[in-house]
């Protein structure tokens, strides 16, 4: 590990001031960043500890939730309003990592965790455009069981590892940011990027910009929502494919629906095509299947991950079937 400085930020303004220094990173629970530094994938000169900032969960005046970026994953998953109004979010968090790591990890840090692509981590043996821009990608023709089938590029086929973020993408969450230019908000689905020819950038954040909170807008039908994660073993593994979905049925027809996919792309994948295909239509298995087919029409398999296309379709049909049953 290369040496770095450490400072605790007292508040957001203090964090911003400390965070403007060259090669400084904000530190949450450290569950990903400490590992990245130890593996020399990340080489910050300084860490600014932001775990002392905004750690509350408050109901907004519109009936949504404002979640401080320093809230620990466990605290968010166990919050009774999340469990009852946005169960997809509790379930997504509880499907990720281990209890110990969920106790440490912050909401802001979860958003900014890096891909677990093994080639990204292999500093000694592999070329990786995300780790070293322009060096090439050894994943594309390598072992690609965990890699992307949607929105990938010839420079990067990595997937975003978060479960929580898949739920946030489905829930129309809003990210609150603080940067040199002041405060701003961003739709959550616009926070993360597709790799294109600049895979070194996971997000659209400006240098030194700080995530201060995540806002969940009110969404009454999200009470009928869930998260299903398919993985190589029953516990403590990253998703091969995951689905976050919320469904509202009225008079036998789909009034509203939200769907996001995990494990398939460089960012949490909002399934807008499937949503459009379903909205206003019947809540039948045929309709669920047609929506899944529409969403996956542009999927491009690599050598080892072609199974994900059919797996995503089947999992989506199953999840929508469960939610339709619960809504009936």
């Amino acid at each position, binding site marked *: 590990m290369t040496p*770095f400085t450490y400072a605790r930020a007292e508040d957001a303004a203090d964090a911003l001031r400390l965070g403007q220094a060259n090669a400084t990173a904000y530190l949450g629970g450290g569950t990903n960043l400490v590992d990245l530094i130890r593996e020399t994938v990340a080489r910050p000169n300084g860490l600014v500890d932001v775990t002392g900032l905004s750690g509350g969960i408050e109901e907004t005046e519109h009936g949504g939730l404002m979640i401080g970026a320093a809230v620990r994953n466990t605290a968010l998953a166990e919050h009774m309003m999340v469990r009852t109004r946005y169960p997809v979010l509790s379930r997504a968090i509880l499907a990720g990592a281990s209890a110990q790591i969920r*106790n440490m990890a912050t909401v802001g840090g979860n958003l900014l965790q890096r891909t677990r692509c093994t080639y990204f981590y292999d500093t000694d043996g592999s070329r990786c455009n995300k780790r070293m821009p322009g060096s090439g990608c050894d994943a594309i023709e390598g072992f690609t069981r965990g890699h992307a089938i949607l929105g990938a590029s010839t420079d990067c086929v990595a997937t975003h590892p978060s479960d929580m973020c898949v739920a946030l993408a489905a829930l129309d969450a809003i990210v609150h940011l603080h940067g040199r230019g002041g405060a701003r908000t961003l739709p959550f689905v616009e926070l993360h990027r597709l790799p294109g020819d600049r895979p070194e950038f996971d997000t659209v954040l400006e240098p030194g910009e700080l995530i201060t909170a995540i806002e969940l807008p009110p969404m009454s039908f999200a009470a009928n929502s869930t998260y299903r994660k398919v993985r190589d073993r029953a516990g403590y593994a990253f998703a091969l494919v995951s689905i976050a979905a919320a469904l509202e049925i009225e008079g036998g027809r789909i009034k509203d629906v939200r769907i996001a996919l995990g494990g398939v792309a460089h960012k949490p994948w909002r399934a807008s095509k499937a949503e459009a295909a379903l909205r206003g239509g019947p809540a039948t298995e045929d309709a669920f299947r047609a929506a899944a087919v529409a969403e996956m029409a542009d999927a491009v398999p690599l050598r080892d991950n072609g199974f994900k296309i059919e797996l995503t379709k089947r999992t989506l049909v199953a999840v929508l079937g469960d939610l339709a049953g619960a809504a009936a």
Partner: protein
Amino acid sequence: MSILINGLAVAPPDDPRVSLLDLLREGLHLSGTKKGCNQGACGACTVLVDGERIVSCLALAVQYDGREVTTIEGLADGDALHPLQQAFIDHDGFQCGYCTPGQICSAIGMAAEAKRGVPSHVSADLAADVTLTREELQERMSGNLCRCGAHNGIIDAIRETLTSQTGAAEMAA
């Protein structure tokens, strides 16, 4: 400020690279907490911070200034074992013993989570009180690996301790 470790005030390290795990083992010679994978995947280094279980390998010690840390060495009362330690012996909850300190600290943190109603991945009803079935315990302990394969004995030991009156009281203490 200082880190309170098993009741003893310890100055945080000068070098921010030092993990809480290395501070415990190398700095304080509290070698009960084990280094397994050193990347958060095995749970051998689990300790309790203000009663919550964390993996100490991914914890930078400087971040824990002002916090209270309990390790396996802090559980027994003199020669009197913590009830969960005794239950691990009674149920063959280990073979080589390397994962045991982490398993025991993790189970104590797990019991506190369940008591305050934290659901798990296998909880059918997110809003209901927690009933620690075998399946629930297996899921909630899935962050602690045992390469000897003593998982069944570990779950038996935890179940027995949680269902005995003195054990349950100690687990919630």
